């Protein structure tokens, strides 16, 4: 029996790695998740055959309760809200790792000091990931609107973290584990997760979610060692390292270091902001439509605002219309367009935009000077030339799409307000820029109308 279980876990581990591998190419990505899913199914079913287990009825109930709630919420959530759902599910994983450690600590039957240490470390990481992910969810869901900061916050957080470490050490080195110490340890670890995530601004949340994802993986691996479960060790470690790399890639795309994201607050330090020269010049949809219809090359730069306005379907309709007129249309995707790297691609894919029309920053930046019209919809900071030119700007140094180098720029925007970062955008004041004021979806509709009438 033990052999069958071990072999099944081995097969599950192989399926997880192959699944992740397939998920890393757009061509095979769709069945990658099915491979990984098959691995999960095998591992879960075989675990019911584990010798010496009881509580089967409660166990099945728990799987049913958690599974149905997650299935229902996962099916229902809008594509724009995906990042916070990932945060939520990730937090649940961290919480589960913490719960495993709690049960093992209460039982107190550890084979060696090493296993005890791993159990406690896994519990610490899992608990921080759990409460931190809940804050990340609340922030992206709009339940917490402002970053919460107070003087001396870093030192306070450091103190809480040290207390958590102290309690962890007590658990590891005291021979008789007292229930009260275990309780205090989990309470402080959870509190640290809350405190750590609270001061971080909404724009930085994706990096933090990715970091928590990696941490949960690590916590799962540690508990895997404790339970002597190879599938957990391998899958957890793979996610831990993959997640760490992904976090680095995301932070790099935003020109921020991970330490900077975690321990400083965006925009709070910002120096004197140079006044932007010029004025915003409006245009109406009919003129904008004509410009695009008679252009040779058009690049569309979508931002999160487009998805919020649910304009992506209209934009694709507009694209098809332009392509019928032999206009070369491309989509330029900034690495942090949307709420996470790749989020915009998902949102456009939902509107049936084929992925080979989408271009990365590196692929498309050289094309802007030969482009007749750039249409910016719902994007702001990622096209702000101040990031290139103004060392005083808080976003200076962030890689941007060079929309300002195109012959003409049309910006669809609700009003004259500033972007997510609160920084004034020099592009909107440029001589070759025209502002098309209005709701993204309505304006895209009017552009379509204008081109159809030609």
């Amino acid at each position: 029996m033990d052999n069958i279980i071990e072999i099944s876990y081995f097969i599950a581990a192989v399926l997880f790695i192959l699944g992740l591998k397939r998920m890393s190419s757009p061509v095979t990505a769709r069945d990658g998740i099915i491979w990984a899913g098959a691995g999960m199914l095998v591992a879960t079913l075989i675990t019911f055959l584990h010798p010496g287990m009881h509580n089967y009825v409660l166990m099945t109930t728990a799987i049913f309760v958690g599974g149905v709630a997650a299935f229902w919420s996962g099916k229902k959530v809008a594509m724009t809200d995906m990042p916070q759902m990932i945060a939520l599910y990730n937090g649940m994983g961290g919480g589960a790792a913490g719960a495993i450690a709690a049960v093992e600590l209460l039982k107190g039957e550890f084979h060696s000091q090493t296993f005890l240490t791993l159990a406690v470390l896994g519990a610490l990481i899992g608990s921080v990931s759990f409460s931190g992910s809940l804050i990340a969810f609340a922030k992206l869901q709009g339940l917490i609107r402002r970053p919460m900061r107070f003087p001396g916050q870093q030192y306070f957080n450091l103190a809480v973290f040290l207390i958590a470490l102290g309690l962890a050490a007590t658990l590891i080195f005291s021979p008789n584990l007292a229930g009260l110490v275990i309780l205090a340890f989990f309470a402080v670890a959870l509190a640290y997760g809350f405190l750590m995530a609270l001061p971080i601004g909404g724009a930085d949340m994706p990096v933090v979610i990715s970091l928590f994802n990696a941490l949960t993986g690590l916590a799962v691996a540690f508990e895997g060692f404790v339970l002597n479960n190879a599938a957990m060790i391998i899958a957890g470690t793979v996610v831990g390292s993959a997640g760490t790399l992904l976090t680095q890639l995301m932070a790099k795309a935003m020109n921020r270091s991970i330490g900077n994201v975690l321990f400083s607050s965006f925009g709070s330090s910002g120096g004197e902001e140079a006044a932007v020269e010029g004025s915003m010049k409006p245009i109406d949809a009919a003129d904008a439509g004509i410009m695009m219809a008679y252009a040779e090359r058009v690049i569309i730069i979508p931002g999160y605002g487009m998805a919020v306005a649910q304009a992506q379907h209209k934009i694709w309709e507009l694209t098809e219309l332009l392509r019928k007129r032999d206009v070369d249309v491309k989509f330029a995707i900034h690495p942090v367009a949307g709420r996470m790297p790749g989020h915009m691609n998902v949102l456009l894919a939902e509107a049936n935009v084929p992925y080979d029309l989408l271009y990365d920053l590196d692929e498309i930046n050289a094309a802007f000077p030969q482009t007749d019209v750039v249409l910016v919809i719902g994007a702001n900071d990622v096209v702000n030339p101040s990031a290139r030119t103004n060392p005083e700007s808080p976003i200076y140094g962030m890689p941007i799409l060079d929309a300002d180098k195109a012959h003409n720029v049309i910006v669809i925007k609700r009003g004259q307000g500033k972007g997510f970062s609160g920084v004034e955008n020099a592009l909107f004041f440029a001589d070759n820029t025209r502002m098309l004021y209005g709701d993204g979806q309505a304006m895209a509709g009017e552009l379509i109308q204008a081109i159809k009438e030609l």
Partner: protein
Amino acid sequence: MIEGMTALYIFMLSAFTGYEVISRVPVILHTPLMSGSNFVHGIVLVGAMVAMGHAQSPLEQVIGFLGVALAAGNAVGGYVVTERMLEMFKSSKGKN
């Protein structure tokens, strides 16, 4: 029993595997892949089941129950959202 150096070797090789699998990924797949890896650590369900299966006292059972429910949420939710995102990846050329 996986012990000592063997455990360390498994840990090291798995870490390199994770790094290699992700290192050549186009940006467009970052979100689905983060979601996919989020699903993969849903394997914590297996551990939660074992922990609950051996739980004795009512307190252990309650915590075990919570653990299994949370882990099932991680696995099922992670799968559903990843699958929803990935099913939309289509090429403009020919089939899908």
